[in-house]
């Protein structure tokens, strides 16, 4: 009986192997570029999970308070900037005010962590792809997963503020995930572009924080888009809305609070188009040089 089973198992294995012979022919050619392949990414799904798991575990290993730290940083920024914005707007420091700042701040922090982590992800993991082959796009994607977990944890703050402020919920809230996705697209697209430059020019690690610091004040994080646009000459309006985070943050505020969060729908649409443009540029640029990374690291 055992022999019989072993035999069938053997022939089954052999059969499988001959099938895979046809499927798995790999051709390696000269050239520095490669292309985006979803099939290839799915094949390395377990690597994707394990890299994300590693980054997440390592971040809070040997930290006494552990994951609580994921809440501390956003809480402090929300308290500080919520207070400042209410002072400048001459408004009361009410929970309503804070919840407004919190929604924008959390989304901005998601963007900023994805942007900066993705732009450093390739050089930080050079020790991996200089020894083993895998599609390098796995690295920045796993970085997103880690940032997303932090973001989901920090959403607790927003939910608490929502309840304290007694905000009502519209059907719009169903749109919220779309704008979280848009934020991820923004961080990922721009981050990929910088990650590629970073391979050759390490100046990127100095430039990214500068862009982020400036970017926060050029986005409707502390103040609303209305606040900015009312104080700008008309010709600057378009420039302001070329910032892809304007669409994401205003859209998110619209989803949460409804009303007049979106100043002008045409500006809003321009901003979203810029997001996708950046994503396409980032991915194209990344794959144009993907195979040469290891020679420059």
């Amino acid at each position, binding site marked *: 009986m055992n022999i019989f089973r072993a035999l069938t198992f053997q022939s089954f294995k052999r059969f499988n*192997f001959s099938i*895979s*012979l046809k499927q*798995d*022919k*790999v*051709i*390696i*050619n*000269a*050239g*520095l570029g490669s292309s985006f392949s979803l099939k290839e990414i799915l094949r*390395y*799904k*377990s*690597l994707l*999970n*394990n*890299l994300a*798991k*590693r980054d997440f*575990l*390592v971040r809070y*290993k*040997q930290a006494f308070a552990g994951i609580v730290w994921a809440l501390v940083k956003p809480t402090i920024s929300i308290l500080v900037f919520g207070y400042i914005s209410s002072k400048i707007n001459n408004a009361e420091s009410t929970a309503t005010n804070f919840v407004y700042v919190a929604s924008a701040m959390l989304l901005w922090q998601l963007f900023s962590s994805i942007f900066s982590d993705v732009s450093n992800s390739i050089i930080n993991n050079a*020790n*991996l*792809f*200089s*020894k*083993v*082959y*895998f599609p390098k796009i796995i690295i920045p994607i796993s970085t997103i997963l880690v940032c997303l977990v932090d973001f989901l944890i920090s959403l607790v703050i927003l939910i608490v503020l929502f309840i304290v402020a007694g905000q009502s919920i519209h059907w719009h809230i169903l749109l919220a995930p779309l704008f979280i996705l848009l934020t991820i697209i923004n961080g990922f697209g721009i981050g990929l572009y910088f990650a590629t430059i970073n391979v050759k020019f390490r100046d990127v690690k100095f430039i990214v924080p500068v862009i982020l610091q400036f970017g926060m004040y050029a986005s409707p994080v502390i103040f609303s888009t209305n606040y900015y646009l009312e104080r700008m000459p008309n010709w600057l309006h378009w420039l302001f809305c070329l910032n892809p985070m304007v669409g994401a943050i205003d859209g998110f505020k619209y989803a949460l609070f409804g009303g007049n969060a979106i100043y002008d729908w045409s500006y809003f649409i321009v901003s979203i188009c810029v997001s996708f443009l950046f994503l396409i540029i980032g991915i194209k640029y990344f794959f144009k040089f993907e*195979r*040469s990374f*290891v*020679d420059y690291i």
Partner: protein
Amino acid sequence: MSSNAIIKVEGLSKQYILNKNAVQQSDTLYGNLINGAKNLRNIVRKKETEDFWALKDVSFEINQGDRVGVIGRNGAGKSTLLKILSRITPPTSGKIEYIGRMASLLEVGTGFHGDLSGRENIYLNGSILGMSKHEIDKKFDEIVAFSEIEKFLDTPVKRYSSGMYVRLAFAVAAHLEPEILIVDEVLAVGDAAFQKKCIGKMNDVSKGEGRTILFVSHNMQAIQKLCNKGLYLNKGTMHSYGEIDDIVGHYLQSGEASQSEFKLPQPQELSYGYAHTVFIEDMKGNSLVEIPVGDDWRARIVFTILKPTPHFIMGFGIVSSFEQAIRTSWSAPDDLVAGEYEMTFDNTDLMLTTGVYSIVIGLSSEQRAFQYVDNVVSISISDVGETSQNKRIVNTQSGLILNPMPVKFKKLS
């Protein structure tokens, strides 16, 4: 592609561009500012570059189930070839076709993270090497048993001894099941017993299960034991490809495997002086490319002293290919004046087994080293072609030191 070729390599070349006026890193802020400016200038101007062909027009085919040993000197292009085959770096020209799943093992423990536990690292490393979660789950117990670290499975690997670390790392790699396995000289780590276990495991994998293996090593014994085909690279081009014994024979006869005269690189900062040439000779002063196992040999080191050197000592060491220091010896301290000197170290009392050993030389004055040479001089002890003259050496594969022990022997009844 011929019917049973699993890998086909056609006209493979890899060019590296060396930047001639590359700016060196500086330690000072001022230096860094100057370098930054120079870098910017270099970007604007056209850089002076120099081509270097790490591989040039290499073509071969490997059949399914072949175990190919890749040999050649350092810089012959062995590692570059493996890196291109394993898709780490792209070729400059040429084409490779292969069938099936390929895994490469250019380093043990790629991606190991010190803060993660043994268990977490098994999953991480396994997935980096291309195993699915399901495969790792299935192999998990086997991996743990092979690595002998059951008790420390949940301890962060940074607390492991280096032996445990290597064992765990190799255990994961050894349980890969690709159709094609590429192995660089990763077996040169770990203790001898574990190495034997690894070679045994690779043997099982290739012979028993019909996998195709490409294996780079400087250890001709290991290669001859494991491989059936050989690929001999010389300065980036393919010298020969064929049956392993023929290829190893070519390699050893070419004299490339070892030399009898070594020019040492001049140290960057000159102080008291420097050693510049090392000769490996027999006791009559004839140069020796290969040292027959059991024979006496001598290293003659020629060095220049530039100024009076108080309390001069030269140290001489023999290191095995497993990075294990085997013997160290020092000259008697002496005060030297400027001039050309020669010093010999005779190896008359220690019989080492066959293999490649590297020689380490250190020059010091008043206990402070001013020159240290390693990875330049190597010796090759072999019994290829002729059996040992010494009747008391029966087998060269049963220990590192073959000095006969005093043996007393009498008939009792």
